[in-house]
Structures are given as structure tokens and as C-alpha cells.
């Protein structure tokens, strides 16, 4: 065989063709008795339906968690989960926290030192000392 081929799998590029929201489930836990979840209860009563309507691709579940602080827990497509304790927060702040969880990718927070990270080859190519105009010394 003069030529054979290597088997690989094409790499995903979320957002290049289709965009898949990485947050797939949001759990809202509240307590009906404790004062720390007063804002959470207000959020569930007033704003949750609008939030769910705006984000139809997220599965939303509401469940009580008696005598505990209210928590929003997000499950992501990569299998990770992230939770935020929203005790003593008001309705608006809880909505912001829910949006923060919705927009997260589910990856661990990490510092990016390079401005651009790409799996594509550089358009200009790598500089080569063997090509181009020769420098006369």
C-alpha cells in the first residue's frame, strides 16, 4: 500500500456552525421558612417563569431544601456542576447569579495568558530563517 490514512475524529468548534448552550440544567433550592431565602422565594414567584421563557434550552427544577440556605446549582454538558449560595440576596441579584451560571461554560476557571487560542493553523505561517531576503552582515 503506497498510501494509507490515519483515522481521527473531527474536532468540535462550538459556535462556528451551531451554538450549543453549555448549561443544561438549573436547580433552584429554597426554604419556605428561613429568612435567608426570602429573595429566592420572591424570585421563584415573580421572575422564574420569565427566566425560563427566555432560556428554553435549560431544564429548570425547583425543589425545597428546608432549613438550609437557598442555592442555585447548574449542571453543564461537560458533566461539571457549579452552585451559588444566594442567601439574603434580592430578586434582581439572584437573577444575575442565575444568568452568570447560564452563561458559564462549565470549565474550571483558568487564566488565559495568550490573547488568541486557536486550533487552526496560523495564516502567516511560522517565521523561517531559511526563507526570505538574506541579511548581509
Amino acid at each position, binding site marked *: *500500500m*503506497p*498510501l*494509507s*490514512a*490515519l*483515522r*481521527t*475524529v*473531527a*474536532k*468540535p*468548534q*462550538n459556535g*462556528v*456552525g*451551531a451554538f*450549543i*448552550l453549555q448549561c*443544561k*440544567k438549573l436547580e433552584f433550592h429554597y*426554604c*419556605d*421558612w428561613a429568612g435567608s431565602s426570602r429573595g429566592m422565594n420572591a424570585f*421563584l*414567584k415573580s421572575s*422564574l*417563569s420569565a427566566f*425560563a*421563557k427566555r*432560556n*428554553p*434550552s*435549560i*431544564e*429548570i*427544577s*425547583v*425543589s*425545597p431544601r*428546608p*432549613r438550609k440556605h437557598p442555592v442555585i446549582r447548574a449542571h453543564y*454538558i461537560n458533566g461539571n456542576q457549579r452552585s451559588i449560595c444566594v442567601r439574603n440576596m434580592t430578586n434582581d441579584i439572584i437573577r444575575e447569579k442565575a444568568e452568570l451560571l447560564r452563561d458559564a461554560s462549565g470549565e474550571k476557571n483558568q487564566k488565559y495568558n495568550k490573547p488568541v487560542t486557536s*486550533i*487552526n*493553523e496560523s495564516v502567516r505561517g511560522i517565521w*523561517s*530563517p*531559511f*526563507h526570505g531576503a538574506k541579511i548581509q552582515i
Partner: protein
Amino acid sequence: MSELLALAPDETKIGSTQPTTEFLSFHWNSQFPSLLLSLPLPLPFALFSCTTSPFLMKRIRFSRCATERLASTTSNTTTPRRPSCIHNVAPSNYKIRLQTRFQSTAAAASDAIPAEMDAGAAEPVAPESKPSASSSRAHTRRRLPLEQLPSPHPHSASQSIKLAALRSRLSLPERFPLQTLARTLVHPSADADPAFNNASLSILGANLLGYYTTEYLMCNYPRLPMSVMFAAQDAYIGPKALALISREWGIEAAAAPGGEVDPGLLQFKRLQAGSGIPGVLKQELPWKWNKTTTHKILATDEFGSDQKPPSPHDLARTPVPVQEAAQSFVRALIGSLQLHLGTPLVKRFFRDHFLSRQLDLSTLFDFRTPTRDVSRLCAREGFEPPVARLISETGRLSRHPVFVVGIYSGKDKLGEGAGSSLDEAKVRAAAAALKAWYLYRPLEVTVPSSTENELDAKKWRPNMVDCGEVIV
């Protein structure tokens, strides 16, 4: 605990009055599919407002409250129920029932959905309290508990929040029915009935995927060697790639299939740990002992595989690995999109989800004798015989020499490569020259499927057809 049980029916009575029914009808309009799971919300609020005991909360199963409530409202519906076996059916209404079974995943009109959901809600809980009413009906059927169904009932699909979220996540329109989406998630290993599993849809989807990928590759890269073509197909729509895609879509697998399982989970019979791969999946012998490329093109699948892939219908009741079930789901989704939404949307879906993936075709080549191939290629195409010339070098006597070699045919440079020895550089240059030839891409391409259902074929431009790879 008895107190609690006594409380729950009261609560359902309270819930059946004004506020909760309003809430239910509100989300049964299917405007907010993902709000479905928030169903327990009004019940606990109503409950706590009347009891005000924090210790009561954690004992009550809110989901059970909800289902009991739903069952109590609409227990006298006359929807067709799924029998255990189609041969057990009474002969009087056999045809009608068979027809109903086969249409069970057909698209429902949007205004018919709430009624159907209503019925579906009544379906799971058999009203044992009223045996006389059910027996007085003309068509008495044995009502199966959900646990005995091999896969979720189609009616339960419209209530699954996971399915609604999945449809929205894939940006599928509302007119794509959730019942069909649920059916694509049922592998034949879970439900052997071809009317309820995804076998037929996955066959259609596999053909469509193969067609669109092949035409994209063949029109855009007309000189691609067949082995590389097979590998590229495998990279885009091979079993591994499809399983990966389904994972990126957020598909979760059910632990075990069954009628009581959420229809938004992938239903298949799992391969037990330690047990070998079943005989259907591993076929030791090739189709024939003929292994030529021509044979692969003519007789095997689009990946040029040596083994015959099992037909989806053969996998009924066979435990399968996750990858097998996941790829059958992706294929079945494509097939059902074709049936429900038509060709243009399938093409767009394919472009967005499959062709948008990054695959560097130049990394797929594995040359054994590139220099010989280049000289054969030049002889075939009538170019001057290729010559390798040293372009530049550094550190020939050092520990890290670098040579840059070009392959020239007359005055044309076909390829160039750098290596730490003269031979390595020459081989790399020859491989680069071959890749430059094989990866030629025409500027304007019209794929054959673009002229489907078009009245004027004037936009069609014939594609380049190459005479093929170099044969040595």
C-alpha cells in the same frame, strides 16, 4: 406519615381549584416547554401556606402529588393504550389499533397537543378504583403498568422537560414533535418493536449523512485518494464522531430502559461490565476475502470498513455499548428531521453541526514511499521527472542540522520540506508535493444535492472528476 398521606389528597383537591389549574393550562400551551418541571412549585407553596410546618416539607414527594393530581382530573379518557404484544389484540378492532400504533409518533397538530397531553397524563396511572367503568367499554384492554413497557410511552414525551430542552438546545423548530424526538432516543436493544424504536429512522439518517458528507468531500476535494476519503468520512460521521456529537448535545443515557424512565434519556440495554461484546457486533470475518479499494468502494459502507456493520434491526434485545446507542440516536435524529422538516433544514443542520467541525485533511495522509509516488505522478501527468534540490541548510556538522529540500519538476517547485537529514528533508518535501496535488480544491463547487427540487438547473456547474490516485 399517615397524617401526611391523609394530607396529600386534600392538597390535590385544593390544587384542582382555581390557581393550579390556571398554572397547568398555562404551561400546557407548550409556550414554555422548559417550565414543565417547575410544576411542583405551586403545590408546595400552597401546601406551606396552609400548614406552615417546616418539618412537613421534606417528607412529601411533590412529584407524586403532581401525578396523582393529574390522574384525578382526567381519568375517564378513552385513548388507545399500548398493548403488550400486537398479536394479543382482539380481532374486532385489530386494524384500527395497529394503525394507531404505527401512527403513534406522527406529527400532531399544534392545537391537538394539549388534549393529547391531557390523555397522556391520565395514561400512566390506571384507575383501579373504577373497574366497572373500564370493563363496560367496548374495547377492554389489559392496562400495563409503566414498568412493564420496554420504552417510555409516546404520550409521556410531551411532558418531558429534557426533551423540550433538547429540542430548544438544537434550535429545532416547534413543529418538530417531541414524540418523534423521544422515539429517536430509543435504541432497538431497549424496545424491539420497530414501531417504537429508532432502527428505521437511523437507517434513513445514516444514508443521508453518508450522502451529504460524500458529496461535500468528493466535490470539494476531487483528487482525494480513496483511503483518505474513507478516513475523512469516518472523522466526520463515523461511529466515534457521532457518539462524541451526541455527548456534546448533552444527551444522557438512562441506567436501564423502561416505560417509567424519562423519555429525554437515551434508552438502550447496557452491556454488563465484564461481559464480552455480543456476537452481532463483532463479526470476525470480512465480507469477503477481497480487500481491494474497488471492493471497498462497491461493497462496503462509506467508511470502507472491513467488517459488515450490524443492521439496527439485528440489535433488538442485544446489550450494546453506549457508543452504538449514541450513534443510532444521531442518525435517527437526522432521519426524523428529513421526514418532518424536509431537505433544506436537514442540509442546514448538517452544515451547522457536522461540517462546521474542524478536520485538517492534510494530517490524515500516511505515505509509505512518497518519493516513488511523486515520480509516478509526474510520469502519469506528463511533468518533467522530479528532482530534489537543496534549498538551504545550516549546521551540517553540528548536533542539530537543518536541511530545506525542494522537489522540482523542471523549473516548478512542487513541494518543500525541512528535516534534520538530507533524506528526511527529501521525504518530507515529496510528501508535501503529493499533498499539494491531492488536496487540490476547486474554487466554485456545486454539490449535486443543491439541485434537488429545483426547477432550473442552470446554477449547476459540472464538477471536476479526477482520474484517481497514483498507482504504483
